[in-house]
């Protein structure tokens, strides 16, 4: 199992969060890969939705953009961005997957700036649809490579709002979704609690200590189960070459 690259591990673990028949709002990269893996294994009726307005997508290869030919090819429906975000705001899409440059203890995500907004150390791409997804999704799964620099106590800019208790109350008042409930890293599966992320399971080949290595949030409350990848998912993975690269043992 240690031959699985980090991207493949995250996609496999995130795919397990998605049930058949769900509709899932995804972006480019691991979110798209994870949903596609689920669709090609245990969730053949999973509806992939991209912000470009594409519904029921089944990309034959990894797209660079949500408006790429791979997203359109073989899709069930091509509408527009208003339709995609409108369905999301109306609570008609069951879940969403997001990634970002930084994630913090309460699931705030940053894709805007490193450093202060007015004088950034690094100006990044901005929200795109990430803020909107984080506000509106009824269930939100965050995926991140295990790179400790990306895990911070508090993000420099909360592009996509998280689920701190104060935010949770405000979300309810505004009629928003609950915010991120699950975080999949290259080593572990975390669940959101009133104290922030709690390690809930480890990925194959990693211990609880590995999963928490370098992270600014705490130790697990007790023994942590391991996630098992099933044969169908591994076999779907084999058909997605860009996810199948080997990676160094941890």
């Amino acid at each position, binding site marked *: 199992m240690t031959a699985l690259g980090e991207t493949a591990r995250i996609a496999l673990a995130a795919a397990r969060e998605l049930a058949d028949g769900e509709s899932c709002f995804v972006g*480019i*990269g691991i979110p798209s890969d994870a949903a596609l893996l689920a669709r090609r294994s245990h969730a053949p009726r999973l509806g992939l939705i991209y*912000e*470009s*307005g*594409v519904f029921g997508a089944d990309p*034959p*290869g990894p*797209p*660079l*953009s*949500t*408006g*790429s*030919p*791979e*997203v*359109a*090819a073989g899709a069930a429906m*091509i*509408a*527009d*961005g*208003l339709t995609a*975000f409108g369905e999301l*705001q109306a609570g008609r899409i069951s879940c969403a997957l997001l990634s970002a440059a930084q994630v913090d203890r309460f699931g*705030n995500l940053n894709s*805007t700036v490193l450093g202060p*907004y007015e004088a*950034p150390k*690094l*100006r*990044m*791409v*901005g*929200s*795109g*649809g*990430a*803020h*909107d997804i*984080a*506000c*509106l999704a009824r269930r939100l799964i965050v995926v991140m490579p295990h790179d400790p620099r990306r895990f911070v106590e508090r993000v420099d*800019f*909360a*592009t*996509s*709002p998280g689920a701190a208790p104060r*935010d949770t109350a*405000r*979300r309810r*008042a*505004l*009629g*928003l979704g609950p915010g991120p409930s699950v975080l999949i890293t290259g080593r572990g599966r975390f669940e959101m609690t009133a104290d922030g992320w709690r390690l809930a399971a480890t990925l194959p080949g990693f211990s609880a200590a590995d999963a928490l290595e370098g992270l600014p949030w705490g130790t697990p409350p007790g023994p942590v189960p391991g996630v098992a990848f099933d044969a169908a998912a591994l076999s779907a993975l084999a058909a997605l070459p860009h996810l199948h690269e080997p990676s160094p043992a941890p």
Partner: protein
Amino acid sequence: MVRDHVRPGQTLFLGGFGHAVPFALGQEIVRQGIGGLTLCRSGADILFDQMIAAGVVRRVIFGYVGNPGVGLGHAFRRAVAAGTLELEEWTNFAMILRLHAGRLGVPFLPARILGIGDQTPATAAAARIACPYTGTELTAIPALVPDVALIHAQQADDEGNVQLWGVDGDTVEGALASERILVTVERIVPAATLRAAPERTRLPAHRVTAVAEVPWGAHPSWVDGAYGRDDAHYRDYDAVSRDPATLDRWLDDWVRSGGGARCTDLLTDDDLAALRTALGGAS
């Protein structure tokens, strides 16, 4: 077309959400040196970055500026660091709603976003309103009515009816929100051909200011049914745009000396044939 209808200092909506990005029109603006522009759209790709690098952009109203799936917009990043670019930063859904409000002729539309999380100066200034029926707190997203929309599409007829199919994003919203619409198309077709499939028409003739036939006018992005996306070009752009001097030379070669449709002159016939039959292109 650009010379007659685009003035320095105007606000331009650039069509194309990954698909059918109006590179030929944007690069023609660079060649003509029409400056002081405000560019707007939800998710913007390297055409924004090139126009920023070329110095014709004063301000961007946006949800995202980058090189999708590849990385950052390096000219954009440098211009922000240098303080030479004004930012009016929203989110993609907010930008879509700004254009939708403009298109529908109302001064704002309510939305549930932008009430939580860190706000940019633009979103922090957005008004909060209460729904008069439910009391729900909402953000009032102000309408945006660009001066000119630049659009690339598959085909149009002589009258100026424009057919665009495939991935849209906010392209039609932005076009209909704008005061004037300039369009390049892969081909001009007879009116009867267009009227045989009226569902594919997205812009009616009376709203379209001018149309020009510019094959390959969206390269390196793609046109559904015509050619695939030149992903290698997007990746190359990441490399050349990391250094300002390299990027300037690249702009000379690809944009200033020809550009747009003509930038495909720099590709070999084999390259073009491969794109024509690539995923999304003609089969």
